[in-house]
């Protein structure tokens, strides 16, 4: 029974000691210890999250770089394609212009040829006409020179005309 009977003296000293212990430890030990532990935890957390952030940033930068590279590559391809197209266009344009020019030249040459032909024909016609006239002249004059009959005819005619 004595074992389970609390002694007043021990209760008293225990109360005093424990209360003092609690107050002193709380103020001078637990608070600083718990605060520093918490601070350190926060520091570690911050460091970790910052590292994570840096890693994310790196990844972002990397992907950005990749994007940039891809873009540059695409741009280069586009430029090359454009250049090729331009070249093709220029060549084809040049070709078509040359064709047209050639066609025009041919047409003009044809025209010229036709004109020349026409002129020549005209000339020829004129020549032929004058030749014909000359031939006729020659024929007529020859006829007239050859016989007096024509003279008699003209005189007969004139006589008839005067009787009337």
């Amino acid at each position, binding site marked *: 029974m*004595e*074992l389970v009977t*609390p002694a*007043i*003296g*021990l209760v008293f000293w225990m*109360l005093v000691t424990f209360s003092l212990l*609690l107050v002193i430890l709380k103020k001078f030990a637990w608070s600083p210890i718990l605060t520093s532990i918490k601070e350190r935890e926060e520091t570690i957390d911050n460091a970790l999250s910052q590292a994570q952030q840096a890693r994310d940033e790196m990844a972002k930068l990397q992907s950005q770089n990749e994007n940039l590279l891809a873009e540059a590559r695409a741009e280069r391809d586009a430029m090359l394609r454009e250049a090729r197209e331009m070249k093709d266009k220029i060549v084809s344009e040049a070709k078509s212009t040359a064709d047209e020019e050639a066609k025009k030249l041919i047409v003009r040459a044809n025209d010229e040829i036709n004109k020349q032909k026409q002129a020549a024909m005209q000339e020829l016609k004129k020549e032929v006409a004058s030749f014909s006239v000359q031939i006729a002249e020659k024929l007529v004059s020859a006829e007239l020179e050859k016989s007096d009959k024509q003279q008699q005819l003209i005189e007969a005619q004139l006589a008839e005309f005067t009787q009337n």
Partner: protein
Amino acid sequence: MAANHAEAEGEVEHESETKFEPGKMILEHIGDSHDWHLWGHTSISLPVIAYSPEQGLKIFSSSRFEHGHAAYDGLMLHEGHLVWEDEGCTDGLYDLSITKNVLAMLVASVFLLIMMLRTASSYRKNKGMAPKGFLNVLEPLILFLRDDVAKPSIGKKADRYMPLILTVFFFIFINNLFGLVPIFPGGANVTGNIAVTMVLALVVFITVTLASNKYYWKHIFVPDVPVWMYPIIIPIEILGVILKPFVLMLRLFANITAGHIIILGFFSLIFIFGAMSPALGYAVSPLSVAFTLFMSLLELLVAFLQAFVFTLLTSIYIGMAVEEHH
């Protein structure tokens, strides 16, 4: 204060020494006393502080009693208790002596205080750095108590009760460990003393009551059961409020006292068998020492375990008191 009382003890001591009474020896060891027995007939006399409303405060060394053989200033020791010399009773007498347990508790408290203050200062010194040296031992304990004991049971308000939880844990733990050290200033059965555990339980009870919110009391006085069950449930709930700290008190007391008793019991075997025949005593002693060693190691575990259990239950009770309604 250490004195050799071999002369004064004389016959009586001799008589009791020849007849070994293990029960008496064990109870003496786990109980409290006004002087601290070191070895043989050497003991430390502790100060006696007695207060009575009529005669005021009396402070003197317990060596004045000459181990219960003499009276001093109207007071004497009867079976280790301070009583009035003339009446042999304790009416109106308050024994506030620095007894063995009080001294052991004070020594342990000073030890705890120095240890923790030094820890705190070393935290201040390498602020924000990794823990060094002894901090590596203490910090896991503190973190364990904070993250695995207090936070899961109390929740958001855990930080407010951390100082109490830490103090209770380390107080019990240090005193348990000191109790296992067989030489001065260890060996006292502080945490196995009902007065000490009663005060600890009282502190828990007061804390829980002060921490409690309306839901805690609603749960007790307006429980979630049909009204006709109120006459059964409400007394049980009220009893539970008292019973919780009461069980805390008994568990620590019983565990630590039992540990001391077992260890002393195994040691007593040597002398019990030795009384039958010296040869038997010698034969039994290795076995007895082995058992004692085993029990001491077990008690090391119990020292931590009981401090942990007390702290865990304390935080669970606080958690129940501050729990918000859901």
